[in-house]
């Protein structure tokens, strides 16, 4: 069956290229993370600029790899844990670079973004299976595609929001202690970071709502229980609830300055939990999922 040998050989070759490219992306994220940490410790703006340049490179390569994957598999790259992690690391980088235009000299949020990009890449490469085989029948649903794609995009925006909030919290702490640092400690800047973080949540919340609804519709069509979901699907609902509490608290003047930021950071923890659960924690706790993923 020479035809099949050619097909399999071609697929193997394309996968080898993709994996090498993705390892390079992970390495660049890791290097960028080190430089961002160095920048925070030394306040050196040049190091911050270099770190951001590396994140640009990682993001560009990541975009190319996601597009390559879509070409290689002949479908949207949302069906396996490997694909979703690659999509997430790409989306969080792109969102950060977009938000960074507002705060060109502030590099602190980059440390969280590069950490997330590095973590997602390493998890995908070490834990997930990169195979682009046939899709499990239950996953062949447009509801699933929308659910997975919108969840990934909204998570990335919320992650950047959490990064800005964490940077504002760190800046605020430095301000209160009167300590200088790599973070430009300025009250107006801290408020600007918080306000922009709030705007990002406002943008991402409807997308996450649509994702949860699409996930419930898919589960109802596939298994009949829209709430009989695995942790990988219920965690977005919990994340949505946390951010709903955040938006409510930001609308109450008395809670805006205290509870709001804490909830944004709690939401960031939920995101990290969702990403980790499908891989590390499931293996650690031996928690099998009903969710049929490929690889």
């Amino acid at each position, binding site marked *: 069956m020479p035809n099949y040998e050619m097909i399999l050989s071609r697929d193997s070759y394309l996968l*080898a290229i993709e994996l090498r490219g993705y390892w390079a992306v992970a390495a660049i994220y890791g290097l960028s993370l080190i430089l961002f940490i160095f920048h925070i410790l030394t306040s050196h703006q040049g190091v911050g600029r270099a770190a951001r340049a590396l994140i640009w490179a990682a993001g560009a390569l990541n975009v190319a790899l996601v597009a390559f994957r879509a070409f290689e598999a002949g479908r949207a790259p949302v069906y396996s844990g490997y694909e979703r992690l690659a999509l997430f690391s790409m989306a969080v980088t792109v969102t950060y670079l977009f938000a960074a235009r507002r705060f060109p000299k502030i590099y602190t949020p980059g440390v969280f973004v590069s950490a997330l990009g590095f973590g997602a890449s390493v998890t995908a490469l070490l834990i997930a299976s990169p195979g682009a085989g046939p899709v499990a029948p239950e996953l062949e649903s447009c509801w699933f595609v929308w659910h997975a794609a919108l969840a990934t995009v909204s998570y990335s925006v919320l992650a950047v929001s959490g990064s800005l909030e964490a940077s504002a919290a760190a800046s605020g702490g430095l301000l209160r202690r009167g300590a200088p640092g790599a973070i430009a400690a300025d009250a107006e800047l801290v408020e600007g970071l918080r306000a922009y973080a709030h705007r990002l949540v406002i943008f991402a919340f409807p997308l996450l709502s649509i994702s949860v609804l699409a996930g419930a519709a898919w589960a109802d*069509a596939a298994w009949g229980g*829209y709430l009989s979901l695995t942790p990988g699907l219920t965690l977005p609902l919990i994340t949505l609830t946390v951010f709903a509490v955040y938006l409510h608290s930001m609308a109450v003047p008395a809670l805006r300055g205290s509870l709001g930021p804490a909830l944004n950071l709690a939401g960031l923890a939920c995101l990290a939990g969702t990403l980790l659960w499908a891989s590390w924690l499931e293996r650690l706790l031996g928690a099998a999922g009903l969710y049929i993923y490929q690889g």
Partner: protein
Amino acid sequence: MDTDNPTTTGLPGSGGTESSSPRGAPRVLYRLATSVTTALWLLGALAILYAIDRVFGLPAGPLLPMAALALLVNLASCVYARYFALQGPVSLPRDFFPSRSILLTQDMTDARIEVRQTLREELGFTLASKDPEWVVMEKGSNRRLLSWLFHLGMIVCVAGLLISYLFAYEGTVTLWPDRPDTIEPEAGGRLIRLLRMTPKETPWSLVLDEFSAEYAEASRLEYPGDPVSRLAVGLGWDSPEYSPRKAPALKGHKSVLRVISNNKAVYSGTASVNGPLKYGGYAFYPKTFVQSLQIRLDGGFLPISARTGTEVFFPGIGPSLKFSTMATGTLERMDGTTETLAPYTVVSKAVYNAGGKGFAPLDKLTLDTGLIVDGRLLTIVGITEGTVLGYRYDPGVWPVRAGGLLVVLLVCARLYSASYILAYNLEEVDGIVTLRLYIEAGGFPADGARVVQRLVDHLTRNDLRPAPVD
């Protein structure tokens, strides 16, 4: 007035009518029920309880539905209270500070006219309310109405969730061709179980008309599992490799079903993966399928039925035999072509060893050939495929869908549209007029600072400015 309510929700006492709020003893409960802080607590509790129940698999008991019920009461109370607030004027928070003060060169009369004209004609604001101290204007989407409708949708959604929790139940049914069967649930929903009742058998029956399966040629990835080997692949020292799988992968299966009531066919449809059959409040989902082979022994008259995957005893043949599932239907090749499968089953014989009982494969058996085992000839004379369907009865699905859709549409409308509330007043001290502004911007595209700057630029456009120094 509820102190923790955001600005423009305008609960009774802050803009609504006094007759809309209860008096006396229930007043405290009413204020608690309509409080945003209560909603925050309940949402937080729901998130934690849901995580405990669904993520960590620890039983949350009745706490989860109790929290959902409490949220439903909170939502209903808020919707009731906000309905009256919608009738009233837009109000501002009790404690707010003007965000900007601008000195104007106009006199008081001109300033009053020009400010209102600029806000109306240049910036598109409309008068919302005014009192002796402040004039309140608004622009953009009606966020009070959108928020109210959104919370109404949430009520429908949460009510649907509670209905599902109390009344939904599920089970499985196996259907063979030409053998109608009713649905006899073993146990009903939580409420029915609590009342120690059992749901009734359906008055209609279901029969399988046709079953078909689709397979696809699949590959297997030879890829190391340990991190070091994976790093070697990343560095180019090793390569992943796809190899063909021996058995095709099941791509999907469909069951054509007919509903029979009073000996008449009343409905017909297909249950497929991601496409359940719905009838009588039930939804039927294909789970798996079963096969029964009719095996003739030595050309005998009566064939023996053998369910694939289960142990079968034949007279004169060793301990027992097992037949693997026959792949029937169509096969999609890797090159995109499709062909009809030539089905076969692998016959295995029971063997006893130190480890216990196992089954050792003997040979393939197809529809066209025979197989001799222990001197006896086995031939397949027929194959019957049945479908195993999961069913679910859930009256809460439609309220959740309708409420969910409403909520999503309104959340998008509320958060993706800009809305502004602007309050201003003018005061004159020693002949100098000061404009004080407070602005609230809602929605992603909103930019309150830009609106204020446009207002200021317009009001000060005729002011004298220092000439630029060369």
